[in-house]
């Protein structure tokens, strides 16, 4: 735990365009560990910060398949195996009647997994985070755009990194304590 030392250096921008350019520049400069914060989703930003593999769809797919199978299995087991009983002269395994519930369970599993998966992959909930130590970061949920280069980046060096950020003409630069 590097509690005493830095978490990173953060630059504040006024427009999404500046932020996206800054991010691209940062990646260009060879920085690996950095991130950008914006008050609303910016398509260009994610690959600007070098984020490419998004795990959510896979999670949802798997959950959906599981839901589908378990939904049908449940009904089959109950009506054919657990307590087979003649209902209105229909066969025990009246599959057409089982379609609806199977579908609903599929959706349920997939939907829930989409939300939980997203949160999990994002590492949320995380009420405490170093970036919140920066007072102006509160604006990140309003109208300001932030770029942070992490201390953990091999290329990180307080002086040079700060200078590097300065070059992009941000509103302000602040050191983020760990």
């Amino acid at each position, binding site marked *: 735990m590097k509690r005493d030392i830095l978490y990173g250096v953060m630059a504040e921008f006024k427009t999404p365009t500046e932020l996206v350019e800054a991010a691209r520049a940062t990646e260009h400069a060879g920085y690996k560990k950095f991130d950008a914060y914006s008050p609303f989703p910016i398509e260009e930003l994610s690959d600007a910060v070098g984020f490419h593999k998004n795990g959510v769809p896979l999670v949802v797919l798997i959950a959906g398949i599981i839901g589908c199978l378990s939904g049908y299995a449940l009904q089959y087991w109950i009506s054919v195996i657990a307590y087979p*009983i*003649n*209902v*209105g*002269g*229909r*066969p025990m395994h*009246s599959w057409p009647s089982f379609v609806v519930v199977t579908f609903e369970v599929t959706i349920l599993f997939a939907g829930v997994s989409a939300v939980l998966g997203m949160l999990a992959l994002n590492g949320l909930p995380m009420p405490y985070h170093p970036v919140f130590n920066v007072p102006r970061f509160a604006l990140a949920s309003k109208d300001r755009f932030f770029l942070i280069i992490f201390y953990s980046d091999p290329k990180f060096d307080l002086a040079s990194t700060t200078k590097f950020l300065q070059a992009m003409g941000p509103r302000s630069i602040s050191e983020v304590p760990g």
Partner: protein
Amino acid sequence: MKIEETRKREDGCPGKHEKLDLATARARLEKTKGPEFWRSLEELAGSDEFREMMHREFPKGASEWVDAVSRRGFMKLMGASLAMAGMTACTKQPLEPIVPYVKQPEELVPGRPMFYATAFELAGYASPVLVESHMYRPTKVEGNEQHSASLGGTDIYAQASILGMYDPDRSQTITNMGDERTWGSFVSAIRGPLSVQKGLKGAGIRLLTQTVSSPTLADQVKAFLAVYPEAKWHVYEPVNRDNVLEGARMAFGQPVETRYDFSKADIILSLDADFLSPGFPGSIRYARDYAKRRNPDSGTMNRMYVVESNPSATGAKADHRLVLRTSDIERFVSSIAAGSTGNNPYPLDMEGEAKFFKAMATDLAGHRGSSIVIVGDHQPAFVHAFAHAWNAQLQNVGTTVFYTDPVDAHPVNQAESLKELVADMRGGKVDVLVILGGNPAYDAPADFGFADLLKSGSVPLRIHHGLYQDETAELCHWHVNAAHYLESWGDARAYDGTVSIVQPLIAPLYSGRSAIEFVATLAGGSEVNGHELVQAYWKKQHSGADFDTFWRKSLHDGWVEGTGFAPKSLIAKATAPTATPASPPGIEINFRHDPSIYDGRFANNGWLQELPKPMSKLTWDSALLVSPATAKQLNLETKDLAELELNGKKVKAPVWIQAGHADNCVTVSLGYGRWRAGRAGTGAGFNMYELRYSATPWVANGAVISNTGAKYVLASTQGYQTMETQDGGDRPLVQTRSLEEYRKEPNFATEEEPPAELTLYPGYDYKKEPYAWGMTIDLNACVGCNNCIIACQSENNIPIVGKEQVNRGRHMHWLRVDAYYQGDRENPKAYFQPVPCMQCENAPCELVCPVGATVHSSEGLNDMVYNRCVGTRYCSNNCPYKVRRFNFLLFQDWETPQLKMMRNPDVTVRSRGVMEKCTYCVQRINHKRIDAEREDRLIADGELETACQQSCPADAIVFGNINDPNSRVAQLKAGARNYSLLADLNTRPRTTYLAEIRNPNPELEA
């Protein structure tokens, strides 16, 4: 076990009550052994908490029958929250006491019912019955298969008598001016007056009974009269057979009972005789014989002509029905009588009457010796006399018509008899009036003012002996609570004279005294016991060493050998018509006993009150039946509150427009509007006795009817009474053809049955199991007597719901009898169709139940699992036959101990919020199956009968195993007339119908 026996309930959850309920009541009962067994109940009955318990939560009016719900409902709610806690239906069960005998009676096998033969008596005529008894509690009345007057059939009154016995409103004590007294104090109290009378040879004593056919009771009365020679015995019943009696006197100069044999009758002419309906002497046997002869496949199908004013069940079965006012029927008959003699003073209108007469007369003439002319009790003496002559002329006497001694032990003109009594009372000649049963204060002719006479105090000592603290008891000094026939020893004659010994199934719940004991006491006997009295009498009749065998046999069989009356050969004298030539103008009122509650004596019997009347399907009420035309002319609408005026007397009554009713006359039913009947009877309907005068007991002319403008709620159980829908559609619910058409095209009914392979799914194979249950209902045989409804109600613990709930469409009958009218409203054809659960093989109800509370058994029963039902009512919506019934509120009475004792322990008592329906009496199936399996055999055909089938007088319902091709039901289903209701829905019902075939006279078919 006793608990299980008495408190079957579908729902273990809600709180079991702490206070004295039947559990503890029974507990106390079982304490003592055999003979004393019942004493403890008497003691119990004495106890305050028992009284308190019985008077607890009695709703005031029938409509509030369900309103004792709240507290229990709340407890159920509590139960609910508990149930939620767990995963299963039921939370922890409380400890349940189980109470053995101290000494157990030998014959008793706990858990198995026993059957005893006895007889139910109505207006002097006995219907022989077997009574099912569980742990010495009578629970169900069944017909006595062996007895020629029953052949297994019963009528609604006999069926409902069980409820009559357990009726918590029955008089429970002896009272003097309303204060409770003991039997001892009563006996000592009357000793004085009686000894005074001794001196006067009893000149001041008057005994008023109902029709008495009991040899023993008659003997008792004679004995009493021997002690008090000057005393007089009067007889009165509001629904009496004076006309029949007078007719017999007219024809034979002596009182004679007429008996018919419909099994030999090809042509039947009924002159206003509703001989297929309960209340008509012998109706049970007659229905059976009629139905047998009605079979279109037999080749000897009978044909029936009915002349009547008010549509009756018999009229509905008629092949030809002539609608005439009651008085016009006499004119019609007179005309026939005069017909032979040149110029006829009674012209017939050529169109209807003459045509009808001609065809009918030739038909009758063509069947000498195999026809019957039968006359209704409402017809004047002349019509009866003429019928006797006619039957003689048709050579029916001795083949289809028989004359015997009267069943009535004291055949007097009852109106006259009562008139004398009233005169004596007026004249102050009466010091002691003993009213033995009956309720003259309510039902005596209006012009006698009997009630006022009682009030006036012109009779210093008035004693009433009866089942209820009724209108008459109220006006008597002493009331002695009578014992119900199921509680007492006695005897009575069936319509053919055969005597049945009446034996008790339970000791008097309220230590009531039977009439026999009562009279014996009056005659001076001290502490007399019915058993001894009856035995004593029969010892006289059957002296000899073998008396015990004779006695045991009589008790066992249910009748006394060789007591049936032998036919007499009598020649009827010709008689001259008495009617006025022209039919009198003005509107006529017909007075009829009510189809459900008879003359009012059953007014407090909830089952009968809620029993739909055969034709109108009305419950809980008496309506003013009017023909459509007359209604228009008087501008009356159904459910208008009309006012009848007769000789200045005014009575209100709700209007019911009755298709097929005669014009210019209305029909009212007696027995309603009682003010001291009990919780069910008091206040229901309107009292028509107020308009009934001694001179015009059955039909009165000159009524004035006006519309009060007010509306009145009439609760009918049938939504719509024709098979034609307003859009011109015609639904073939009752399949019917004439005999000729049927012969031409026998399979007309079965055409629309879809082929089995039509269904997408492979059907379930019911051949796997030994049994597959099925039922047929022969619409030809069904006479709409409603007996099956009550039988089902009694067998299956079906609650009643009260008028208000019936009106909301929430009646609970598992089996209903639909009545449909077809064609011309002035004189439509009418059909009966009993509708139980169809037990569909492709049951639509099962498919939609989310919790699987209604599913199929392997033997093809459509099981209804009450304790699984959550009450979505989806099954009922999806049931095309609408045979499912739902407990919208807590309809069952969980509180009244008597009603608990009445219940069938083999059937779960349903609670609030669950669906229920006909189960094919699955409890009976299970019992029979287990018995058979124990003996390692299959259930024999006919061994197993459903409740409706068992007591059907017409034998219209047949139930059995359709996997056995030789079973009766399988045979019937194979027959041509067999068809399924709404077959095109492919529900594959197990209950099917045999189409109705009419046998009209070709001459009249035009």
